[in-house]
């Protein structure tokens, strides 16, 4: 089998790191890296506290009120977090699977590539809000609406990055593998599959915050359960402390997911060398 890709690089440097490396390493050198986050968080809490002395509680609630609302959510409304997390997980898993498949087809099938690429690029140009409104018209079931919205928004990111990853596959490695006369499956199994894994992680880390915002927004307009729906309820009942509490939990949720993805990446991509830039 002859693999047809558009090589992006001419020279393969086996110990050089892919661009995603820098983002992953981001200075993981102990507790010191958390100090700025703690300082900024403390400053924000102080600012909210000071502001709450001068404005009514329905504009800015005190940190104590926000903590109380947070506690209420954790004890009574945690199921909504689970629902949102499950929606997010299913949609991201589907987007990864579909986006990677589209990216692989784009990267390996030159005849289909221009059409798929055009389709994906047109998709990236459609505003998320348009998809949300269309989903409300098209689907009755809120779960399908949210799944559809997240999928059409996330799939292009994976497809384009995986396609780019395949283009970056060194021609030298393709020639080496082909010297053994592999089947298409072997090329996928031993070369393309492992090569695109860093690109999938990079995309996941890049889109996870965006995906959370999208699922919340989709829940807000298209569902009665989930964090977005609860935030909508809090807004309509003038519970700004609850909105602040949900916001706090969403930040924690985002950071936790980012940490989980980074931890998984460190395990899966353990073959990559640690690099220090002086």
């Amino acid at each position, binding site marked *: 089998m002859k693999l047809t890709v558009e090589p992006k690089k001419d020279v393969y440097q086996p110990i050089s790191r892919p661009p995603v490396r820098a983002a992953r390493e981001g200075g993981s050198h102990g507790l010191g890296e958390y100090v700025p986050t703690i300082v900024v968080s403390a400053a924000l809490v102080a600012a909210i506290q000071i502001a709450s002395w001068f404005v009514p509680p329905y504009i800015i609630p005190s940190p104590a009120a926000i903590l109380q609302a947070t506690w209420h959510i954790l004890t009574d409304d945690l199921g909504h977090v689970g629902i949102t997390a499950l929606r997010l997980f299913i949609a991201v898993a589907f987007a990864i699977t579909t986006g990677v498949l589209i990216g692989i087809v784009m990267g390996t099938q030159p005849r289909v590539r221009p059409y798929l690429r055009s389709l994906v690029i047109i998709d990236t140009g459609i505003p998320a809000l348009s998809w949300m409104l269309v989903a409300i018209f098209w689907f009755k079931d809120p779960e399908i609406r949210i799944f559809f919205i997240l999928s059409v928004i996330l799939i292009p990111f994976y497809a384009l990055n995986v396609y780019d990853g395949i283009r970056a596959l060194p021609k030298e*490695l393709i020639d080496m593998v082909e*010297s053994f006369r592999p089947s298409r499956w072997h090329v996928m199994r031993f070369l393309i599959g492992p090569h695109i894994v860093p690109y999938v992680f990079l995309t996941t880390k890049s889109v996870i915050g965006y995906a959370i915002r999208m699922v919340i927004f989709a829940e807000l307009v298209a569902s009665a359960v989930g964090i977005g729906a609860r935030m909508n309820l809090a807004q309509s009942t003038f519970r700004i402390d609850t909105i602040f509490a949900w916001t706090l939990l969403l930040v924690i949720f985002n950071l936790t997911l980012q940490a989980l993805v980074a931890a998984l990446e460190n395990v899966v*991509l353990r073959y990559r060398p640690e690099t220090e830039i002086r």
Partner: protein
Amino acid sequence: MSEAAAVIEIRNVSKAFGALTVAHDLNLVVRKGEIVALLGRTGAGKSTVLNMIMGNLSYDSGSIRVAGFDPYAEFRKLRGRLSVSFQQDRLLPWMTAVENASLGLRILGKSKAEALSVARTWLARVGLAGAEDKYVHELSGGMRQRVSLARALAVDPELVLLDESFSQLDHVTSKALRADFSRVVREFNKTCLFVTHRIDDAIEMADRVLVLEHGASMVLEERIVDDDRTDGERRATLHGRIAAAMGGQDSE
């Protein structure tokens, strides 16, 4: 005594890229168990010849047979019969040394356990026992090239092609690796064609040296015997003849 069977047989092969002739009426035979060095100055057509033998490049006229098959038209039929070690090690960074060495075997359909077992044996043969589980970035340049050679040999091919496989290594590492490779290739009676621009590599490893000039036409064929390697005077004379055929070009 009858001659051994030809593993590579190139008859009257010509190849041109547009107006540029890169091979003209080339004839070349490599017999089973031979180690043949292909030398030539830059642009002589060494890589073209190697690519045609590998099946990566078609030819315009003549015929090429590798292990009895046309390497381009019958690309898949050479599966398991031919392997290549390149100038750069071309190891897969996500695999350990032993996984890299077992790659060809996995592609040939061996089970993972069997492929790893054979690969371990070959890594030991090329002097890498104990480094099997290291990732590529944990290996030195010489070690990586050894893994690359183990990967090429592990599939038990009829023909091993080397494309400047030692040229990026320092002198000491290159010399040790050449010696190990020659020993293993002779021990297992493999056929080997290697492309190099270093005359010393050719004299030390090859049974026969072929020098190409522009258009891949043969300008010198020298059979090497052990005395050519060990006798300083004979070696210097041979070196001079080869260098002259290459237009005085030798990287060392």
